[in-house]
């Protein structure tokens, strides 16, 4: 039976893990390679590395980060942040990413999803979707790190992305992200309906209970950052809790 994945997320900039930590003095939790290796030891099923870069220098730092993480890591590595073209994706994969995630560029040019899937296979393409609640009681897709609203209804966009070739959806609740109040379960259930690719829940996790709730709401995998970075829970703690709840996880 396919197990539920627990995925720590590393937010990086210039070769360091830069956020996801709520306590001031723990701002720098170590190098991405050390963090990734630690989480693998704890039982992480995959690592997501988000590295938003704006400059050429940033690109070189990102490549170096991925290479050094890859050397250490013997579990899957997904990398996202600023993927706008086949060439961007190829660069990340050459450095050692196993999957690439696309977000804003895919909304601007949905054909990119199709191109990436045709070139690298759909198992390699993660569509990252940021959803924000709207005045109609539903959710719209937002881009540019939440700064821009789009006309896309979130369920429609996820299905369209999957039809174009996205192998899985990484769904972040923009309302919950950073609030530590739990995943947005209504959003997860809404997107899960009629979606036939794996769904990764993201945004708002603060306890093992929150991860369990997201799994009950239909998530195939759960992504979390701060609860692991803060040292409050190890991946192993979370897995023990989930096992006790009857969730099948890799041991």
């Amino acid at each position, binding site marked *: 039976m*396919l197990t539920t994945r627990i995925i720590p997320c590393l937010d990086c900039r210039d070769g360091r893990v830069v956020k996801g930590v709520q306590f001031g003095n723990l701002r720098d939790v170590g190098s991405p390679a050390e963090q990734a290796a630690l989480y693998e030891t704890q039982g992480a*099923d995959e690592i997501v590395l988000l590295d938003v870069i704006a400059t050429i220098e940033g690109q070189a730092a990102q490549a170096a980060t991925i290479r050094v993480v890859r050397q250490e890591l013997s579990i899957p590595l997904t990398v996202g942040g600023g993927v706008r073209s086949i060439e961007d994706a190829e660069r990340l994969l050459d450095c*050692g990413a196993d999957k690439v995630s696309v977000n804003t560029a895919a909304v601007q040019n949905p054909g990119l999803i199709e191109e990436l899937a045709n070139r*690298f296979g759909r198992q390699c393409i993660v569509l990252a979707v940021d959803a924000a609640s709207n005045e109609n009681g539903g959710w719209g897709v937002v881009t540019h790190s939440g700064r821009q609203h789009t006309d896309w209804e979130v369920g429609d966009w996820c299905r369209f992305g999957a039809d174009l070739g996205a192998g899985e959806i990484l769904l972040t609740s923009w309302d919950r992200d950073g609030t530590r109040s739990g995943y947005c379960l209504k959003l997860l259930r809404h997107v899960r309906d009629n979606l036939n690719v*794996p769904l990764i829940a993201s945004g708002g996790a603060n306890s093992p209970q929150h991860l369990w709730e997201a799994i009950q709401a239909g998530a195939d995998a759960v992504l979390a950052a701060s609860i692991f970075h803060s040292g409050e829970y190890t991946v192993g703690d979370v897995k023990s809790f989930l096992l006790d709840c009857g969730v099948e996880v890799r041991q």
Partner: protein
Amino acid sequence: MIPNDPLSVSIVSTGVANVASVLAAFRRLGAEPREISTPEAVRSAERLVLPGVGAFEAAMQELIRRGLVEPLRERIERDLPTLCICLGLQLLARSSEESPGVPGLGVIDAAVERLPARRLPQLGWNRVQPHEKSRFFVQRAVGETASNANSEVDKESYANATPIQPGYAYYANSFCLRREPSGWLASWSNYEGDFVAAIERGRVLACQFHPELSGEWGRQCLLNWLENSGC
């Protein structure tokens, strides 16, 4: 004592992704992997890895274009040490439901089918139940590398290894084999129905999962292949 030479491993590189993870995995084992892409290199490789991601048809076209079809068939028929990963396994078949009408390498008498699950691709970790006579899914010491495993002491500990070790492996696939090909031993996984996790015959191992991404269990699988690939 003279240290053993690192084991050389040739990785077939046909321009599709994921080779970096395979290279990294073999380096961590103390082996010396290198990328190759010519028929001569496929023929003469001491140990060969055929990785593969993407679509069946595109991968076959690439093998044909580079003249690798016959050298690959010959290797496997002659039982030269070969490891096929993911799509690499599927390419051994006669055909695939993914690309109707496109012939595969035809080394095994089997047709690739779509996984019998609702949610595809299968992305994640699934339990592998090895064949009871498997040579590749046996328990090894944690931290052991290919070069130090060559010593006499380690050969002894290898002989005493737990014979069969089930475990979790990482998959990224929508297609699979669903029957044991004649002449091969199959190990199994289940995703809303049984499917072939790996097949082996002599010194040839073909995995539907990604051993290079399957943590310590995958590492042991690669190490066992390196060890069993000796003469």
